[in-house]
């Protein structure tokens, strides 16, 4: 008899392990993890929102399903028969109004916190990249390094320009457009920002994982919108220095 609690405990820990593994695997809810410091914060916000949204949706679905099954008219029922003719239950109504308010207040707090993390700009960024969007391409200028990367004339099958960033550096992107509105989107960073002519926007990206990330124009900008792509290479510090040395065109700062 003494083995029983032990085996129960074993079952317990095992199922807990399985549950944790399942949760870890499914907790992304389809979202990429975000390869920047800012993107990681966004990813955690996504998880929090999904962990709130899915149970709420499930409860509503279960209530609806319960009604449809339990209160369906069955074969042989009198078609004229009425349901229970109640019109209101103030306690229930107050509950289903106030609980959602509490939920959205909580979500608002989480959303604003993450928002200020993502929107925060460092006093002294490690690197500046001026990004100019135009129909239909990108110009990436590294003023301090004297490097400039420009799209080839864009169109179907033309590879986009490459922005090289050192891993771990706080990169200040200075974004503008010189014709119509575009949007600088790197899905792997979970971030986009519009480029609006006549305005300049500044935001920080701190890449945390080396790799190549696709970038796209996300705001419809006319004929070749779908081909206004670019990519971002996140590399180590040394590799970045080597790349700068190879591509320096203007007198270095």
């Amino acid at each position, binding site marked *: 008899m003494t083995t029983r609690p032990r085996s129960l405990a074993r079952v317990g820990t095992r199922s807990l392990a399985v549950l944790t593994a399942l949760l870890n695997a499914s907790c992304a809810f389809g979202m990429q993890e975000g390869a920047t410091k800012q993107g990681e914060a966004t990813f955690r916000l996504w998880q929090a929102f999904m962990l709130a949204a899915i149970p709420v949706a499930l409860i509503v679905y279960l209530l609806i399903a319960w009604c449809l099954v339990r209160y369906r008219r069955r074969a042989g029922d009198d078609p004229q028969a009425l349901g229970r003719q109640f019109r209101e239950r103030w306690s229930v109504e107050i509950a*289903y109004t106030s609980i959602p308010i509490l939920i959205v207040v909580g979500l608002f707090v989480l959303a604003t916190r993450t928002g200020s993390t993502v929107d925060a700009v460092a006093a002294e960024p490690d690197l500046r990249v001026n990004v100019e969007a135009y129909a239909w391409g990108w110009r990436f200028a590294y003023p301090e390094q004297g490097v400039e990367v420009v799209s080839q004339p864009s169109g179907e099958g033309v590879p986009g320009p490459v922005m090289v960033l050192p891993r771990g550096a706080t990169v200040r992107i200075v974004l503008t457009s010189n014709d119509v509105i575009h949007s600088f989107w790197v899905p792997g960073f979970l971030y986009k920002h519009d480029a609006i002519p006549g305005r300049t926007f500044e935001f920080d990206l701190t890449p945390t994982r080396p790799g190549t990330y696709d970038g796209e124009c996300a705001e419809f900008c006319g*004929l070749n919108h779908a081909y206004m792509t670019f990519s971002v290479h996140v590399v180590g510090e040394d590799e970045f220095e080597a790349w700068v040395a190879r591509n320096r065109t203007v007198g270095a700062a």
Partner: protein
Amino acid sequence: MTTTAGRVVPSPEPAPPAHRLGPVERLTSTDHKNIGVLYCVTAFLFFLVGGALAGVIRLELAEPGRILANETYNGLFTIHGTVMIFLFVAPFGAGLANYFVPLQIGAPDMAFPRLNLLSYWFFAGGGALILLSGFASAGGGAAMGWTAYPPLSGLAHSPGVGPDLWILGLAMVAVSSLMTAVNLLTTVFLMRTAAMTMWRLPIFTWNMVVVAILGLVAFPPAVAGLSLLLIDRRLGGHAFDPLGGGDPAIYQHLFWFLGHPEVYILILPFFGVITEIIPVFSRKPLFGYTGFVMATVAIGALSVGVWAHHMFVTGVVDNPFFAAMTLLIAVPTGVKFFNWTGSMWGGRIWFTTPMLFAIGFLLNFLIGGVTGILLAAPALDYQLSDSYFVVAHFHYTMVGGAVFGIFAAIYFWFPKVTGAMLREKLGRIVFGLLFVGFNVTFWPQFVLGQRGLPRRYVDYPPDVGFDAPNLVSSLGYVVMAAGVIAFLVDVWISLRTRVPAGDDPWGGYSLEWATTSPPPEQNFVSMPPIRSERPAFDLRHPEARP
């Protein structure tokens, strides 16, 4: 008709046979019922056009690679969006309102019958201009997206008369909406029958009151924005031209100040429709009538303060404020889900086709609503905005919600309007095809968005995770198209071989069910007493008096 418990019920003598309108009369009669039918039929024709355009879009996107010219594709989604929003869903709601609001409040017609007809012709004329703007314009059609952001929609980037026609057409539709709004509000406020207090208004009518107020608030700034755009294009203005000291972001404010109330203008009528349907087929009163009306008014009020959540990624707005407003508006919408569930609780649910569509509405719209909450967080919006995630989200609200509401309304009220039933069995098939087809079409688009596919792309690279969801989505379109064809067959058969509906085939609640199908000119021969928000029910069930 019948006499129940000594109470005289409408039309003791048989109603005169319905007068069949000739084509000229059809197009010029100011009877609100005729105008309602004109609106709905015209809107449905626009739906078929917009749906066909969607078919070409899905064909283009089924596989990577291009079959259309970029310009053609850009025109397709521009006109698809404009047609579906401004020429189908909104005017279909207006058509239902034209037909049923006077009936539901016991009025003989709308307050301003000729204004009513004029607003129909402004809508039809504006719609014709919008179609022309896409397909028959010298020097290039409208291909700047239905949002028409400058500078892209300026003359330099969108030459040709297409965008001008588009602006004029949309302005005409906006003016038409304003006329309808004034007309509806006057009708509801001044022409209710005796004892029809505001707290006894059927919910559909209540929702149309809020829609009309939203129209009055939101359309004038949009017309101003469109006018400035036209002035910039043709008369040398610089309102949105950064080189001339203007600011393109101002246009976005004006546009979305219409644009977001507009989505509630689109959905509220169909909230109203399913709120009529669910209690009727559950054999119960609406649960929480007062709370429901308050929630509708709250949605209307909040909806004019959420517009800039479309602009989180522009960097020119105060994101936390608009995030708060957007999250808050989820609350009254959530309340409605509990009203609907509560209305089924303890009922005797009769699964007719209109009820199936109403249930489909609940299942689909919940996903649209929940994903809307995700998009309300600016940081999440930074990733999801302008991606297919957003496309999926608003199709879940507009197709899964509004269009399912439209089909619910058609199956519910067709017998009242025509005097003939639609076929129930065929109706179930229509529902099945549309429900499955809809979800197969639009669920994969959430996946596409998360994988990083921006909207309005004519093409996408192969082998990066975009192929399979796009193909599945296109197959889903075929299923939906089959559903629409089955629906047209249903209408055709039902009108050819008429199964008489009688005055009240469903056991309806509001006043339209207490008159003949179709109702006579002036709508009522006699008026039942009004004791609650469901006078037709009270008439049949004096024992269940509130």
